[in-house]
């Protein structure tokens, strides 16, 4: 079934006591896509991912993973990198990777070969026989990533894979994710890093307070949530711009003004050119970051809600 989505959630709800962690969420993750889960802390991301992993069971709704409904039959085909890293500190790296790979049903020899390939690619060959507790945080995180993919899963779920990594390792891991995509692996990852999500994801899903608020490609999302906004540098500056019809708001950045429009940019440009000399005119789209912040202006206390 090549066209069957890798993951389907239908009206899934999960409650913990009084709190509803995931509230009537439906989504589809196409095969071979990189699918970004975004949302503030405590919005239900981890709970949704755990339900997809069949670690938690939904109270209501149906979850289908790789064509398998409500059982853990597909579990071996799914690699999972949890938000909190989990490695045996006393185990040497290669033995740990072999163990995790075997637990996913991998053959010992195949798993070892795959592990060595990834260790080489991620620059960890030198520590293959070192105990995990000897590794730096960045190294341990890369080892955890390898543990997730070492059994060659068809679907990989990464919970905050980039958090706590320095820029160099971030790029290394991004390349690794793109390599998975080249192999045809479906990748779902959650992140706070909007830039990374924008660059990497084919589709983006945003969950807020347990409810789905965004779902689609970046283009679709920007179109839906896009406000008409232009960056302008023109003689007369902000004072002049505010007098042009159709202007809602002007944010003065000094050398350039950010103008929020009620009407179409084309009409605004015509009106502007009639009044003054225009040095720069750029139609912008809101970044994912802006959309995220718009939707989820976190109240201070929400920062302390643990991810459930």
């Amino acid at each position: 079934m090549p066209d069957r989505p890798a993951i389907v959630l239908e009206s899934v709800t999960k409650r913990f006591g009084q709190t509803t962690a995931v509230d009537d969420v439906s989504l589809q993750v196409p095969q071979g896509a990189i699918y970004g889960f975004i949302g503030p802390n405590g919005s239900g991301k981890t709970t949704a991912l755990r339900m997809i992993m069949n670690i938690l069971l939904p109270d209501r709704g149906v979850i289908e993973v790789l064509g398998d409904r409500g059982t853990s039959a597909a579990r071996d085909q799914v690699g999972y990198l949890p938000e909190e890293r989990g490695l045996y500190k006393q185990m040497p790296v290669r033995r740990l990777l072999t163990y995790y790979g075997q637990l996913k049903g991998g053959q010992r020899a195949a798993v070892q070969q795959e592990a060595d390939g990834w260790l080489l690619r991620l620059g960890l060959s030198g520590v293959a026989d070192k105990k995990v507790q000897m590794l730096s945080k960045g190294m341990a995180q890369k080892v955890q990533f390898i543990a997730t993919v070492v059994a060659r899963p068809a679907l990989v779920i990464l919970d905050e894979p980039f958090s706590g990594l320095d820029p160099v390792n971030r790029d290394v891991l991004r390349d690794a994710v793109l390599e998975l995509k080249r192999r045809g692996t479906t990748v779902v990852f959650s992140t706070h890093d909007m830039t990374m999500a924008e660059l990497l994801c084919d589709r983006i899903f945003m969950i807020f307070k347990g409810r789905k608020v965004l779902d689609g490609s970046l283009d679709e999302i920007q179109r839906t949530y896009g406000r008409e906004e232009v960056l302008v540098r023109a003689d007369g500056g902000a004072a002049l711009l505010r007098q042009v019809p159709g202007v809602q708001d002007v944010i003065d950045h000094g050398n350039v003004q950010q103008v929020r429009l009620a009407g179409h940019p084309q009409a605004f440009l015509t009106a502007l050119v009639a009044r003054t000399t225009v040095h720069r005119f750029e139609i912008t789209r809101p970044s994912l970051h802006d959309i995220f912040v718009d939707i989820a202006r976190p109240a201070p206390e929400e920062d302390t809600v643990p991810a459930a």
Partner: protein
Amino acid sequence: MMPKILIIAVAEFEQAVRSKAFLIGLLALPLLMGAAFVVQAYGARRDTSERRVAIVDHTGVVGAHLIDAARVHNAEATSSTGRRTGPHFLAQLVDPAGRGDEDLRLELSDRVRREELFAFVEVPAAVLDVRGERPRVQYFTEYPTYEPLPDWLRTEVGQLVADQRVVRSGGDPVAMRALLAPVSMDRKSLVVRTPDGRVSIAEKVDVLRAFAMPAIAMFLLFALVMSSAPQLLNSVIEEKTSRISEVLLGSVTAFQLMLGKLLGSVAVTLVLAVIYVGGGLLLAAQADYVGLIRWGLVPWFALFLVIAVVLFGSMFIAIGAACSEVKDAQGMMTPAMLVSMFPIFLWLNVAQNPDSAFSVWLSLFPFAAPYLMLLRIAIPPGPPAWQIVLSVLGALLATGAMVFAAGRILRVGLLMQGKTATYREMARWITTR
């Protein structure tokens, strides 16, 4: 399902056997036992102190006798090279010289406090009386737990006083001692008719030896279980605190994880058992104690070992799953430790009276069955078959229930972070699907 359990078991086994703790643990038990033995033997022999004792003698005969007896004792406690082999007693007579009892006692007490004396005794004149209520000898010391000196005094004074009483009643002390010599008794096992038609000669039973084999078997079982089952608690807590549990649960079910761990533990204890039991048998053969070994006990030992490791192991897994930190586990451990150790406190009662109602009921109780039923089987003639069957069935049933409950608790507990569950919550986890 099976292969994943095996993979976990193998990993657990490897991890346990490769660790330094395993090697230390392996050596620790024999080393500790050996060290305790050596220290005790050394300590017992090394009491070569000199104990000065003052004697306030109101009888006129006891004091002089004690001084002579001390000389004999000291000579016996001296090697041919002149070194002391035991404590020496230096007795000295105290002349009251008209002082009252109380003054004298105070003065001698002060001398003991100044460490000029170790102790003093008062021997009232009336101890020699043939009839009537006789007073007791009084022994004064700062060290009431020191035994050799008062033991020696009691024996010597007792013998002399008895002789004196016999003399006063007109008897011959030597003849009297011979008349009053205690009767000895041998303990023998039962006899059978041998193939050539004769009745076998009954073997003399050594009480110490009869106790030795059952006790060794039971305590070895206990040591093996205790060396592995509580480890499972640490292993589960490690997986919880370092968040490995979530990775594992992405690959296997909580139940598979637990069965794998239990299987790994059973394997580790069986290896330890083979090493200890094998070593013990080898030592027994060397020391010519082979006759003491009851080979029929080995399968029972193995069976009860597996049952106990799984029963107590799953209990400790459940506790580990409920705790979020090792230090939280301490409080939860206490009841579990009590449950797993109480049979050991009662072993002597059971060993001395293996077929009493108390022993029977206790050895049928699942948590005590592995230890106490093994003990009863080891003590001849052994319990009736129905009791063995009942205790094994009961223990198996309890083990099954414990494994089930622990699996349920593990499933919920593994993902719980930051707080330790109460027993009430654990009970709810077991009952909710």
